[in-house]
């Protein structure tokens, strides 16, 4: 059992090596087979491990395996060791299974691209790093995986490197997440300084023993770790990189920026929840940040006209929901929403990828239309995904997960009606923008004709994800509907149960409210964008729409505050003292070259003259001795 756990992160790294070293010699079929097959194998292993894990509950709650010793100096002793518990198992399942479907899709999507094997190498490296992140036993190894996924995100966003804008977007993503990463490593330093260990379980135990609730050290460390999570998960104020990261290929957006990497922040906070319980200030900050982000992103998504940017802002918004859940202490609800969100967001991104590919790289939804009849499979799966996103009541999985969060936002110990209000407005916005997307893209008359029909490699993963978006919610039904708690029972082995302060009969009221709001949002979208498009005209040309579209001006703010001064400084400093030194050496060499090249002018008599002068000099010198 433990060997299989050790193999789970190892296999993607192995296939990364094979593809990186020999990828250009392999045929496309073989490269795709290795790339997707390795993740399929890992998914199978996860499944086997999961069965073993379920069988051994509730006695054994976690498995550990140490591979080798990494650092051993002074009092710092770090091993490469993995530990699997319920939280890691859920994350592993999502990463490997959704990752496998996305890899299969990519074989079809990237089939005409020249960097085929390079793509799969990077994707496998990413999956390997992400698995290291969620399976890590100590926080330093988790940081290794954290940095690894950041690197792969950079490599994959700028995958089509010949276009300079892609490189700019990749650098922006990397730099902004770097700000968060720096805060996180300082937090890790403080933890090690105080407790002398980096093992997460030991850290949490010692922290709950030594630090009082609300002590300044706990607040500082929790705040620093929160900054790291904010950067990776694209929450306020570090959310500006995610919409620009849509410059990468759609499978990348599906895997990294919907299902896995952006949820690393959620994982971090869930993993170190003890620390956050010791700093209630920080935990309420998480909830507030989550609420604000989901509202801001929801408004921004309403004003976009690039298909992938709508989905990017939607991702920011949904992760805001997860942060909201974490902030009020509803740990299992956050993880549940993460799983369901992975399903339908990956589905939406893959579907958007097909639409963009088939319409010859057309991203503007106002130039699409009428795809309902022409691409029925894509339309139906996309519809299911959007319905799950909008939390259509009772039939979609999204309803159950989002509803759980909304309920706990109000009813949990640290919840409040304000947070619930933010959540419900966000739900309305979600329904609005997702069905706006559906109506404009798939209905109406076709402004661009699709060039070809997508093959099975691309549509079968869509169908699988669509089915999961519908039935995935049935593992966790609230008490009023089915009272199935398979998921929370699993996760509560690791994370504490949420403490509720309101009664269960109020729950039905809130569920009804969220169902009504979702349906209202869909109806309004139907009215404005389908029946009478003219109703949306005054809004779409207003100044507030422009403000929403630019992401509430955050890009402009950061540019003015940070980017422009640094660029101005470096332009001024272009020819400073150290540059003179380097340029001077080069100029000296060039001067010598031009001097000496006079001596090589090809003229025979010149050379003879130099002979004669040399002989005269040497003889004179020898005779003078």
């Amino acid at each position: 059992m433990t060997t299989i756990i050790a193999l789970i992160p190892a296999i993607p790294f192995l296939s990364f090596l094979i593809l990186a070293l020999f990828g250009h010699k392999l045929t496309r079929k073989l490269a795709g087979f290795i790339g997707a097959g390795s993740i399929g194998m890992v998914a199978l292993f996860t499944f086997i491990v999961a069965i073993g894990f379920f069988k051994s509950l509730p006695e054994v709650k976690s498995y550990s395996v140490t591979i080798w010793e990494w650092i051993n100096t002074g009092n710092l002793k770090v091993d490469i060791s993995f530990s699997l518990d319920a939280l890691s198992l859920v994350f592993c399942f999502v990463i490997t299974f959704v990752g496998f479907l996305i890899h299969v899709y990519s074989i079809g999507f990237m089939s005409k691209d020249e960097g085929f094997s390079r793509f799969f190498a990077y994707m496998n490296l990413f999956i390997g790093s992400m698995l290291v992140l969620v399976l890590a036993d100590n926080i330093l190894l988790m940081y290794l995986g954290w940095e690894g996924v950041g690197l792969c995100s950079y490599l994959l966003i700028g995958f089509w490197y010949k276009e300079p804008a892609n490189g700019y977007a990749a650098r922006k993503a990397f730099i902004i997440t770097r700000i968060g990463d720096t805060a996180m490593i300082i937090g890790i330093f403080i933890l090690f300084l105080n407790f002398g260990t980096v093992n997460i379980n030991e850290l949490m135990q010692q922290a709950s023993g030594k630090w009082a609730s609300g002590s300044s050290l706990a607040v500082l460390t929790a705040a620093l770790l929160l900054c790291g999570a904010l950067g990776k998960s694209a929450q306020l104020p570090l959310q500006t990189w995610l919409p620009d990261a849509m410059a990468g290929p759609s499978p990348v957006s599906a895997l990294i920026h919907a299902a896995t990497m952006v949820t690393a922040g959620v994982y971090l906070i869930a993993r170190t929840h003890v620390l956050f319980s010791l700093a209630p200030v920080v935990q309420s900050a998480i909830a507030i940040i989550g609420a604000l982000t989901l509202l801001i992103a929801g408004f921004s998504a309403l004003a976009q006209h690039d298909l992938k940017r709508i989905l990017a802002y939607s991702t920011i918004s949904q992760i805001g929901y997860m942060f909201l859940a974490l902030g009020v202490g509803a740990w299992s609800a956050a993880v549940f929403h993460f799983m369901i969100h992975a399903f339908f967001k990956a589905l939406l991104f893959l579907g958007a990828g097909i639409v963009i590919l088939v319409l010859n790289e057309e991203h503007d939804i106002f130039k699409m239309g009428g795809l309902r009849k022409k691409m029925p499979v894509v339309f139906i799966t996309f519809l299911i995904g959007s319905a799950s996103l909008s939390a259509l009541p009772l039939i979609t999985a999204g309803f159950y997960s989002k509803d759980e969060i909304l309920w706990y936002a109000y009813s949990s110990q640290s919840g409040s009606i304000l947070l619930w209000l933010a959540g419900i407005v966000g739900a309305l916005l979600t329904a609005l923008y997702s069905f706006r997307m559906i109506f404009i893209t798939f209905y109406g008359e076709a402004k661009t004709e699709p060039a070809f029909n997508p093959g099975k490699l691309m549509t079968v993963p869509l169908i699988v994800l669509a089915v999961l978006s519908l039935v995935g919610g049935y593992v966790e039904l609230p008490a009023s509907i089915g009272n199935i708690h398979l998921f929370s029972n699993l996760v509560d082995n690791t994370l504490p149960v949420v403490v509720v302060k309101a009664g269960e009969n109020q729950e039905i009221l809130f569920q009804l409210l969220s169902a009504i709001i979702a349906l209202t949002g869909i109806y309004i979208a139907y009215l404005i964008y389908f029946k009478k498009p003219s109703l949306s005209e005054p809004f779409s040309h207003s100044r507030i729409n422009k403000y929403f579209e630019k992401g509430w001006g955050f890009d402009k703010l950061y540019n003015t505050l940070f980017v422009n001064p640094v660029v101005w400084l470096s332009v001024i400093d272009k020819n400073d003292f150290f540059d003179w030194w380097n340029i001077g050496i080069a100029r000296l060499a060039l001067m010598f070259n031009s001097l000496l090249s006079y001596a090589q002018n090809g003229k025979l008599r010149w050379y003879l003259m130099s002979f004669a002068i040399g002989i005269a000099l040497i003889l004179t010198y020898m005779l003078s001795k």
Partner: protein
Amino acid sequence: MLTVSIETQILFAGILFFLGLIGLLVRRNMIFMLMSIEIMFNSAGLVFIIAATHWKQPDGQVMFIFILAVTAVEVSIALALILQVYHHFKTLDADAVNKLKDHN
């Protein structure tokens, strides 16, 4: 029989050699350069004979015969090369054959 001192003899050969050197450095026509080289060869051989007389051995004369053979070969090949250069460059100017220069 000859009471001229050996310094004078070698000086004579030296003057001939340096005349050849001057001719080599000054002239631009390749035939003249070759001719100057011949003068230098000849004066070197003269020094060998002077030495042979001085030490009363035939080795210097043997050396002169070898120099003669080498000169003959060298002249014939050099003239063949000059012919080729003339056919290619249409001139006998030594400065015109500067294609190996550093194009800076």
